[in-house]
Structures are given as structure tokens and as C-alpha cells.
């Protein structure tokens, strides 16, 4: 079943004519004939959850926007920077009008008169496509004053960012859109109450907003029948890494992960097996490539129960030829680079994690360092204004948990290779964790411990 990827490769779909011929903007007409409250009710009934990462119910988010006349805003988050995610790029580039239609209907439901698409600056071509589509929509009277003779007025601006992962975080995105450095804000107040220019703001991911016309077409109740009870609808899954057919696949939520990884993407290259996989982009805790996890239904709740998350729906496959230390180091380096520096646990935690992983790589670390590294991850989670630090802490923490033996073997091998001799016994100063018993300091020869 395809809702967003129907005829996706037809070049006509990106034009107003082609989109209209396939019933495009019909849902906008229908929505404008009903009350905003009715549109909101359809969204609530549909149970559609945010496709950007957090998975918050879109209808509920819309209902948090205060009623009444005031400057309200709708912002489409198209700052897709999560490693492994590339669904919004393909959607915007090939089906821009469905996004624009979704934005107009969404803005009508919450009473917003000004909307923005915040697209990452690197997406030059998709932004050009959006600009062209927007010009067509404006000329056809879908954007502007009194849309199609109704009382609804909406302006839409395509705003190009300039390269910062943090701007995908909603409050950092608002700061960037206000012309500041992309630093997250303290919440509450949540953007629904005080967001862009201090007005109530609805922020949704590209794919979420593209589902709005689909919900309107099917009706909320009917839409809710697709997928599982708590994860409704279809999801565009980006699959990449060590697979034979990487790309975007639209699947019904609840499809088994095995079917997506092996059935659609062809599984890992010939002769290899899956060592680990990120179910929801690089921010999601990794899962081992065992049957227990591969047979999970791919939906929000099943993955959360398994200790990971669906996130943006981006699967990255790591096969058995890749050392897990390299993956951990790449991940940590990315978050260190992208940390905005506002909160200490994230700024320092990402930096120290990289340093520790580098020591693991060269064999300078001891297995005890893995405990310290795990505790650093725990200190980051939940202690910052936004979840960027958590986004590193969760995958790194899960890698240490699932692949501890490999980390230890790596340390031993690297130590031998670099001529560092046998591991030095250390007093476990930190939290007692893992298979390492607390040593009595009296048993340790202090002269031997200092190397």
C-alpha cells in the first residue's frame, strides 16, 4: 500500500498539472468547506504519529495550539540531518505539492497564517523543486490571500538553513529561523504555546505533513485501520549501510523488520551476516542482528519495547566485516561535531566519549574504561535542554551493552599490535559494573599501576 510513494518516479508528479490530475489539492478544497475543528478531529482520529523522530501524535500536537485570533505559525521541519535518514529528500524532490497541500490544510486546522519550510542548506535541488512548486501553487491561488474563496489566508516561505544537525531539533530550528545560532531552548514553554516569534507554533516533519492529505482522503477512522493499533499508517523507511538495495521503501507500520531488511533491501552482501542494526537512524540504540530482533514488527511500540526506537524510520545495517569500535567512533565524532555547546553534559560528554573511544581503538584503554564510558553516557541522558547528547549516549551505551566482548577483544588486540604489553590492573574507582570485581587497593602494587 502506497500513500506517499504512489507514482513517485513519474516526473509529472512534481508539477501542479500532474499532481492535480491525480486528485491533488482536492483534499484542500474539501477541507476548506469544513470547519477547522473538523479537520483537527480527523487528524486526532487517524492516530498519525510524527515521522521525524519523537513519534508524538500529530493530532494531539495540533490540539495544543491555542484557539483564537493571534499570530500562529506552522513550520515544516525539513532539516533532515540524521545519519541514515533520507526519506524527506526524496519526498520533497519528487512529490513537493503533496507537502504544500498538507501544510495548507494543517495551517487551516490550527488557524496559522504564516508557514515556513525549514530545509537544510545542503538540499539545494529539493529546495529548488520546492521553490518552483510553491510558485505554481501561489499562481493557482492555493497560497496567498483568501485561498479558493475561503477566509483562510496563508503565506509560505522556503527557508534554507546552512548546515547544522542541531537545527533538526524543534526549538533550535526556531532559533535558526529567527536568524540566530541554532541553540535549543528551555522547555516549557513548548513551541505550541510559545514558539516562533513568541507565537504558538506547530512544527511537523515533512512526511507527517504529507500524510495530512492522505488522512483527509481516507478519513481519520479509515486511516487508523492501516498499520497497528498504536502505529497507524504507512512509513517511508530509509535503509542504508551494508545492504544490497539501499533506498527508501514505503511500508505499512508493523511490517516485520526482517521483511524490510531482507525482502525489500536484499539483506547484507553475499556471504556476510548482520552484526548490528540501527532501527531509527544513528540516534537509536543499536540492536544485534539476531532473530529475536530481526523478527520484531517495525512500529513505534515494538521497537521501544525492544529497547530501541523507530525514530525517523532509518535503518542502518552494519555487517560482520565492520569492527563495532569504528562504528561507535564515527557516531561519537559526529555528535561531538554537531553539539551546539550550550549544555555541559552534551558538549563535554561527546568530547570525552570520542577521546575514550580513540583510546580503545589504539589499545591504550583498559576494560575498566568501558565502564567509565558507559557511566558517561548515563550522565548525559536527560540532563540537557535537547536530546542531541542522548542521541549519542543511547547508541554508544547500547553498543557497549551488546558488544562488550568485542570492545574488550579490540583493546587486547590493539594493545598487542601497538606493543603496549599486557593490560595493567587498575583499581576500579568508578561504579562497579560488568564482570570486573572491585579490587582492594591494598592488593595493588602502586608502582605497577603507573605506566
Amino acid at each position: 500500500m502506497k500513500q506517499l510513494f504512489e507514482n513517485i518516479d513519474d516526473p509529472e508528479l512534481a508539477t501542479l498539472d500532474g499532481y492535480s490530475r491525480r486528485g491533488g489539492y482536492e483534499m484542500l478544497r474539501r477541507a476548506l468547506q469544513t470547519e477547522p475543528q473538523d479537520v483537527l478531529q480527523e487528524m486526532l482520529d487517524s492516530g498519525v504519529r510524527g515521522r521525524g523522530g519523537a513519534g508524538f501524535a500529530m493530532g494531539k500536537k495540533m490540539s495544543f495550539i491555542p484557539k483564537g485570533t493571534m499570530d500562529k505559525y506552522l513550520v515544516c521541519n525539513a532539516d533532515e540531518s540524521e545519519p541514515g535518514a533520507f526519506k524527506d529528500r526524496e519526498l520533497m524532490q519528487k512529490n513537493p505539492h503533496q507537502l504544500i497541500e498538507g501544510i495548507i490544510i494543517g495551517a487551516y486546522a490550527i488557524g496559522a497564517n504564516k508557514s515556513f519550510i525549514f530545509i537544510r542548506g545542503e538540499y539545494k535541488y529539493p529546495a529548488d523543486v520546492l521553490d518552483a512548486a510553491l510558485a505554481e501553487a501561489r499562481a493557482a491561488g492555493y497560497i496567498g490571500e483568501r485561498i479558493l474563496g475561503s477566509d483562510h489566508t496563508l503565506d509560505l516561505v522556503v527557508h534554507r538553513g546552512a548546515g547544522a544537525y542541531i537545527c533538526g531539533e524543534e526549538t533550535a530550528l526556531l532559533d535558526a529561523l529567527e536568524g540566530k545560532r541554532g541553540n535549543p531552548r528551555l522547555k516549557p514553554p513548548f513551541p505550541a504555546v510559545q514558539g516562533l516569534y513568541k507565537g504558538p507554533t506547530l512544527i511537523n516533519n515533512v512526511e507527517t505533513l504529507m500524510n495530512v492529505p492522505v488522512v483527509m482522503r481516507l478519513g481519520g477512522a479509515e486511516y487508523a485501520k492501516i498499520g497497528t493499533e498504536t502505529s497507524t499508517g504507512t512509513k517511508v523507511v530509509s535503509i542504508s549501510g551494508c545492504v544490497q538495495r539501499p533506498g527508501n521503501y514505503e511500508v505499512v507500520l508493523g511490517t516485520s523488520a526482517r521483511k524490510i531488511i531482507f525482502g525489500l533491501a536484499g539483506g547484507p552482501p553475499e556471504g556476510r551476516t548482520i552484526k548490528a542494526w540501527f532501527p531509527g537512524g544513528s540516534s537509536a540504540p543499536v540492536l544485534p542482528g539476531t532473530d529475536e530482533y530481526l523478527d520484531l514488527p517495525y512500529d513505534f511500540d515494538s521497537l521501544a519495547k525492544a529497547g530501541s526506537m523507530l525514530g525517523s524510520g532509518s535503518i542502518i545495517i552494519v555487517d560482520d566485516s565492520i569492527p563495532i569500535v569504528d562504528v561507535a567512533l564515527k557516531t561519537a565524532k559526529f555528535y561531538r561535531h554537531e553539539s551546539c555547546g550550550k549544555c555541559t553534559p552534551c558538549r563535554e560528554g561527546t568530547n570525552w566519549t570520542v577521546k575514550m573511544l580513540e583510546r580503545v581503538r589504539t589499545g591504550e584503554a583498559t576494560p575498566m574504561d568501558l565502564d567509565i564510558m558507559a557511566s558517561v553516557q548515563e550522565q548525559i541522558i536527560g540532563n540537557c535542554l535537547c536530546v542531541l547528547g542522548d542521541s549519542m549516549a543511547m547508541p554508544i551505551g547500547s553498543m557497549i551493552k551488546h558488544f562488550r566482548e568485542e570492545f574488550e577483544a579490540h583493546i587486547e588486540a590493539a594493545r598487542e599490535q601497538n606493543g603496549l604489553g599486557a593490560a595493567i590492573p587498575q583499581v576500579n574507582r568508578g561504579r562497579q559494573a560488568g564482570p570486573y570485581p572491585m579490587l582492594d587497593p591494598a592488593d595493588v602494587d602502586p608502582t605497577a599501576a603507573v605506566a
Partner: protein
Amino acid sequence: MAIDPSQVPRFAHGSRVPGWDDSADLTKDPAVVPDPATTPVPDHVRVAIEAQMAKYPDVRSAAIPALHIVQREHGWCSPTAIEQAACVMRLTPAYLTALATFYDMFSTTPKGRHDVYVCTNISCSLLGADAVYEAMLSAAGDDPDFHVKAFECLGACDIAPMASVDGEYVGPLELEDCARIVEDVKAGREVLPDKQLRKRKAAG
């Protein structure tokens, strides 16, 4: 053992800590909003920035678009470029410099005209992006026209390993493609027409 702070050597910028960004010249007065009478701004730059400012309820929102405009004009976010944007937007140069140093696409040091961003993030590096980056660096050599940069995930993991050449996404790249990229850019041709992402069909 107490540390005597006066014994800790100072860095060239005067502080005892290495510093994160470029240090400020403390002997100068803070720069004020540039005077339009003494700051020449090319007309087309002014018009472009003003058009951006008109789009937003708050003109400051046009700061990032304005920096894109002056960077395109000057090749990098030079002090002159930032001064021109600041002059049109009626902001201090410091405000815009703070933005230019924050965002990866702006460069506050001179760079080549052609941006080649090689993605070296997880999905790409699983498939050999680090080698592609090295090959790209050696293919570009010391040609001053090229600005080769290892970039964080560019959102095209389906064509990993990939690069963005002046905004055009190309991949999956082989090591020998790097030399072709350099040739194509130099000749002013379309870059790797057979590997452009925009021509690729969706997986399903």
C-alpha cells in the same frame, strides 16, 4: 600541589586556555552597525538581501539567507562580506560573524569556488567513504578552485559513498570517480551525469 597560574604560559591570543573559535582583538573598539554612507554594497547584493528581509515578520530571520548571498558574492564570509550584509540588515558584524562561525556551510576563511562535500558519516563510511575522501583530496590537489571538505551526513545514504559537488549529489562513488569530478568541474560540464542522485529512481 598547587599550580601557580602565573607560571602557565599564555597562548598567542593572550589567554591561558587554547580557545575554541577565533579570538577577538581586544585592543579594538567593538564594531558598530556599519554606516551605509561609508560601506559600499553592490546594488544586486542589496536588492537580494532586501528581498529576503521582506519575506519574514522579523527581518533578522533573513540573516542566514543574507550570509548565503554574500558568501556567493565574495567566495567566503570575509570581513567585507559580513560588513555588507550587516549594513543592509542593520545588524552588527559580530552578530553575523557569530552565525557564520556556527553553521558548517559558511566559511570565515578563504576557500575555493567549488564546494566538494564528501560525506564521511556512518552509512557512507561503512562503504568506504574515508578512502573516497582521501582520493578526492589528492584528485583536487592544491588547486585553489576546489574546497574539498569532509561533511557530516548529507542525507543521501542510498547512494553511499557520495559527495555533493556544488550542490549536485553524486554517488555511489568509486575511487576513480574523484578524478572525473575534478575534470568535469574544471571543464564546466555536468558532474558525473550517470551518477546524479536527481536522476535516480526510488527504491520502492
